[in-house]
């Protein structure tokens, strides 16, 4: 993973968010306050806008900048959570050497580093939001994905397989939120009425993971 990849990933995420306007908006209208799409769009747009500022940076610096930019751009519940994710991920990468080697180079160690950093990011979300698995939040996507990611990389799995698996794991986590009662976030007030609706934050995280994994697959294949 190099900075070029991060910039491409930002664009892929932006495209995916914009393409899912209706879905994201409807989900947050159903069990939230209807602004999740707008918040995510604002965030996605801003990280694409700062491309030129990101380009000269190391990956850890780029991720940190993304986190700080998201913190002052998104707002709402998703803002500080996603910001914490990127800032923590950056911290872990920064504290390790050689992080300029990317997925493209198919270095197992590098992939493990990314998985570790990802896990640290998810941990930051858990700490900030005081939520955990099964509370009908973005964590129902992020925690399984993070666990799977670390597991597969420690098992030296093929990156293509990892990507394909994570796409699947994210989707399952996202779908699973449908049958949950929310105990964190805005939907927590709804009780049983939240059942039957997918959590908007889980959906957008699933979309982002899918976008980044597909980008990796494309680059590996292309």
């Amino acid at each position, binding site marked *: 993973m190099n900075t070029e990849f991060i910039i491409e990933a930002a664009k892929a995420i932006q495209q995916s968010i914009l393409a899912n306007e209706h879905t994201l*908006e409807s989900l947050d*209208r159903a*069990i*939230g*306050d*209807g*602004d999740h*799409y*707008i*918040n995510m769009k*604002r965030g996605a747009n801003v990280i694409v806008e700062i491309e030129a500022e990101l380009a000269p940076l190391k990956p850890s610096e780029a991720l940190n900048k993304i986190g700080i930019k998201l*913190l*002052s*751009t*998104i*707002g*709402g*519940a*998703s*803002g*500080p*959570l996603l*910001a*914490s994710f990127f800032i923590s991920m950056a911290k872990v990468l920064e504290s390790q050497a050689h992080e300029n080697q990317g997925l493209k180079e198919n270095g197992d160690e590098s992939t493990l580093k990314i998985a570790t950093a990802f896990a640290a990011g998810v941990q930051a979300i858990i700490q*900030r*939001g*005081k939520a955990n698995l099964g509370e009908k939040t973005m964590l129902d996507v992020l925690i399984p994905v993070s666990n799977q990611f670390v597991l597969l990389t420690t098992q030296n799995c093929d990156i293509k397989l990892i990507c394909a698996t994570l796409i699947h794991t994210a989707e399952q986590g996202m779908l699973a939120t449908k049958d949950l*009662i*929310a*105990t*964190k*976030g*805005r939907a*927590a*007030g*709804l*009780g049983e*009425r939240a059942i039957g609706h997918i959590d908007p934050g889980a959906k957008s995280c699933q979309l982002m993971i899918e976008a980044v994994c597909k980008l990796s697959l494309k680059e590996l294949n292309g």
Partner: protein
Amino acid sequence: MKKFINKIDNILIESLSGFATAHSDLVTLHLDPNFLTRKNKAQNKVAVISGGGSGHEPLHAGYIGYGMLDAACPGHVFTSPTPDQMLMAAEAVHADKGILFIVKNYAGDVMNFEMAAEMLPFESATVLTSDDCAVINSTYTTGRRGVAGTVIVEKCVGSLAETGADLQTCKALGDKVNNRTASIGIALTSCTVPAAGRPTFDIGDTELEMGVGIHGEPGRRRETMREADELVRDCVDAILADFKARDLDTANNSEALLLINGFGATPLMELYLIYNTAAKLFSQHSIQISRSLVGNYTTALDMAGASVTLCLLDDEIKRHWDSPVHTAALRHER
């Protein structure tokens, strides 16, 4: 969606600019990051800062001024503001006695203010308002939502801060007022977030949402429209049940403040009608309404509907409610 707007992305800035111009004797607007401060910086007092998503006007900017807030941080419509706004606001109004944040209890607001507090180079404390008793089963919740009762907290804490009280004393009063307050709202129509362009929820011509949140969040139940007296009775009962569940004693002719808050599109005529019924019902439960506020004080954009808020008074709260205040939306000198 028909609204008086130009480009959707500019609504907030244009509206804030209008507010700051119309009340240039009271506030100064700072942009990018956005926050508003009192015109004349107060000295040697706890600086009281609130903020939250926009769309609840006059909350919070309308309460900046002597006896209430020192600064407000407006987020995008219905979206919590971001830590940079609070940091800059704190920087601007800090007056050597620390910062008190008044934050409505929503995950987003709590986390953004929390991150700001962590980064803040000054001492700070936070009062979380959580007066909405609509959501009953607390096992499902991260806590109750902060709604119209926030105005009462801001008024009382602002008054105390003016006396030079220290940070913890101010926080304690805020927590006390919040604890002695309960609210519940009813929506007759949905609000429309400008950027979304369509109503947040669908609601039939003869339906209402009992217990609605101030962002259009669903409440206790969807029901068929009924007479105002019946609806108000349900609100009053919900508030009394909430006080009971929280062991707040309402017997013995307690004095209380009754706030009937419009959500934005319900006329004063109806709000006073609601007040009339609510005041009667509370007095039947030997609660004496000795202070009143009726109007649009914590709105939900263009939602038709209203909320009932009761705050149990004691001498301290009463004194701070009655004390002078000079803001755009609340003003009295004695």
